């Protein structure tokens, strides 16, 4: 089973209650797969109740990166959250674990 991690690396961070997760394709071929399969809808579903708001996807084609802006993702915001990862520093690793399906 292909996972995002097989195709990309990433980083995440916080702004208020927004967590953004960037994923960067490891190759042009990987980029095509990411563009097709790692949609905002799938990312939103992959995080379930952890992301309360919307997920928006942005593209940076020349560095083959996708940026997912996730609202309501940090339990009220980094300064209020009770979570150990209150700044969403490792949330991208959960995205990297997402399975893409091999159809």
């Amino acid at each position, binding site marked *: 089973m292909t996972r995002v991690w097989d195709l990309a690396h990433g980083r995440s961070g916080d*702004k208020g209650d927004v967590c953004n997760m*960037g994923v960067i394709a490891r190759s042009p071929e990987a980029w095509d797969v990411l563009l097709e399969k790692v949609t905002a809808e799938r990312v939103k579903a992959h995080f379930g109740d952890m992301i309360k708001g919307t997920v928006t996807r942005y593209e940076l084609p020349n560095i083959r*990166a996708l940026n997912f802006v996730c609202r309501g993702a940090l339990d009220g915001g980094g300064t209020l959250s009770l979570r150990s990862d209150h700044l969403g520093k490792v949330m991208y690793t959960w995205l990297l674990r997402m399975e893409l399906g091999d159809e």
Partner: protein
Amino acid sequence: MKSVKLGTGLAFWGDSIRPAIEMVERADIQYLCCDHLAELTMSILNKQKSKRPDLGYTTDIIPFLRGVLRKCHERGIKIISNAGGANPESCAREVVKLCQEFGLYGMKVACVTGDDIMDRIDDVLAQGVALENTDTGQPLAEIRDRVTQANVYTGCEGIVEALENGADIVICGRVTDAAVYLGPMRYELGWGAEDWELLGAGTGIAHCVECGGQATGGLYSGGWDEMRNLPSLGYPVTTVFENGEAILSKTPQTGGGVTVGTVSEQLVYEVMDPANYLTADSVADVSQIKLDQIAPDQVKISNVTGKPAPATLKVNMGYRAGFVGEAQFTYTWPDAVKKAKAGLEFLAERLKQVDFKASETRVEYIGRNSMWGPELVANPGEDETELDEIVVRFAARCPTAEDARKVFTESVPLYNNGPAGASGIGTRPPIKELFGIWPCLIPREFVTQKVAITEVLQPEEVAA
């Protein structure tokens, strides 16, 4: 083509000062740029200032300057910092004192203010600016009586003015992270205040380096085990050209690495819409950025542009939002999970007995789901009877410090009175006050930066 060489000194309050010391010794930079302020920092600094009026700046600027100042003076390296935080005047005074201690007479220390609108909130409201929450749309009235701090993310204009007036060290309050880099770019490269495309390019370049080691191999997920000598990570050294392109490198003979991968990861860090990266100085567009490896540890940045700066500036207000109390405890085999759950019930019952109040509680199992919570990873099950150990973290958001303290005091009896096999209960944790962040907008004409420059004089000159 004109260019300027900027070094990243510090990337957050409390960052290591060693990379900057190595940089001023080994890299031929002209400016050392330091961003000390994160979203929560201004609230913490204001709290410190309210207890001691001479505090309220990030005090790490002093040991930092002790480490780099002589070399910077000798080599003509200027220092730009937003360490002033909630009290730039006091910070600048301390910096002047340090220059005197070092005998660096004639140096000019600038203080850039104008970002603090705390005393003007009611006046601003009266003039029809709603200051409603840009994330939620809520009116300010909901938290007005709990606001402790209100600072505008101001741009690089004050820094440019300070440099034009000969400043060697520029201490700012809440200027944007990018401004401490964009100021010297504008001053050295002759960019105008409305050269939007260049200002956007400069802002994008600043974003690539403002988090220091995060661009040079720190936290690099693409190949973390390929990054050599991370304990001696080198920080970014950036040559910015007048056409808005740059070469990102790092201090020679340091650890880490500068690759298209490391810079790409930093580029996407804390960015919303990459085509509309809003700052006080421009709306940067990094969506079409190009990164090219032109030599080992050298990445060329190009194709970043910008649009006119927004008519409004972002304000971050901090407001009191209660307290957090935490308890942590560990249970071991046999029946570690069952005991952990019994320990949590023990704590819940004791809290009930002391009339504990909390608006929200959270349980995480460290080593299992502390980063994910039960939302994504299930709690350990009682059928997992062979677990060697399980660490429980209980946290509660409480209306008062007294309630938050109860979380700890009522967990202490777990040492002697609770289920068997408990340890790691810990010493008394500090009670943490919470501050909510209230993001809102203010028309730019309401905000004017002020620049004050102090020349470092010999003590007898001061007396005269």
